[in-house]
């Protein structure tokens, strides 16, 4: 572990296993951002929580659990609803060696976090999970492909099935959350993972690793390209109409 400093956005299905992975790897400081309370219907994949936590703010319940795992760990619970303004302020306040883990369930938020991490020169790992699988990508702006080199824009709500409608297998969230922690620790240690996307589907039991080339004209990483167009954040994936909140 080099800097050992991480900012985890979303303490839900991906965030919970990612946090456990970071603590197990020896993280020294973790900030956790979420604005939701623990919900009994999500306990199958939000493995930091139990029935006694239902109704409590996720960030508080997660911090309590992580401190019990490692009393030396500095944990900073941040109950915050993320939008462009709050996120930009949050990222601007981070030390330069912070690695960000984007674990929310908001498609637009993933791209916003990606773009703002580029502006603030922060490394990040972006994850997504649905049904039996998902993906995780390590991004260091200026080194290797960025998330927008691979995906130019977030899927519109009408074409992105909601997690509420199709579900998320707990084991898929667990595997991808730990993969995100692994990639974040590797970025922290300056290992050669930037630009790597790992896709995993538990029904196939066959991970797929892709290291795409940087895309000329990519608004996410080409300094000569126009900045990406950003609109208001859409709904969270977890709900059909969804409050604009990371989960």
């Amino acid at each position, binding site marked *: 572990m080099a800097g050992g400093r991480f900012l985890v956005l979303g303490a839900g299905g991906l965030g919970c296993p990612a946090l456990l992975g970071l603590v197990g790897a020896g993280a020294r400081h973790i900030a956790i951002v979420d604005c939701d309370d623990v919900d009994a219907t999500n306990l199958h994949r939000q493995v930091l929580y139990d029935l006694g936590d239902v109704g409590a703010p996720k960030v508080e319940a997660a911090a309590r659990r992580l401190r019990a795992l490692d009393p030396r760990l500095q944990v900073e619970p941040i109950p915050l609803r993320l939008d462009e303004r709050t996120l930009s302020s949050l990222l601007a306040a981070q030390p330069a060696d912070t690695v960000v883990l984007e674990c929310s*369930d908001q498609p637009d938020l*993933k791209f916003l976090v990606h773009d703002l991490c580029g502006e603030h020169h922060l490394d990040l790992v972006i994850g*997504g999970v*649905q049904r039996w*699988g998902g993906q995780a990508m390590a991004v260091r702006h200026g080194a290797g492909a960025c998330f927008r080199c691979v*995906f130019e824009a*977030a*899927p519109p709500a009408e074409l992105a099935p909601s997690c509420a409608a199709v579900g998320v297998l707990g084991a898929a969230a667990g595997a991808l959350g730990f993969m995100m922690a692994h990639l974040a620790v590797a970025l922290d240690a300056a290992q050669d993972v930037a630009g790597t996307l790992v896709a995993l*589907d538990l029904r196939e039991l066959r991970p797929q690793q892709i290291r795409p080339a940087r895309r000329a004209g990519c608004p996410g990483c080409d300094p000569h390209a126009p900045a990406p167009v950003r609109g208001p954040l859409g709904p969270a994936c977890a709900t059909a109409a969804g409050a604009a909140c990371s989960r």
Partner: protein
Amino acid sequence: MPNVRIPTPLRKYTQGREEVTIDGETVGSVLDGLEQSYPGIKERICDEAGKVRRFVNVFVGEDDIRFLDNLATAVKASDEISIVPAIAGG
């Protein structure tokens, strides 16, 4: 025939099949064949103008077709085509 890996969100069109083999000499013709076999799937991959949607990526083996010839990229019978959409959930 080229093998096409179907991502989780699109398997409702393929009756849950993870991989299908579709005849075709280019990525575009394989996607047309995919639509013939599994109606409705292509519009989830390509937009109204017939271009691959911005939140979807198509690979032939490890190669992104945007760096090749896009939908005109030639494919061999031994190739594996992967359709990789951005996954939104967390």
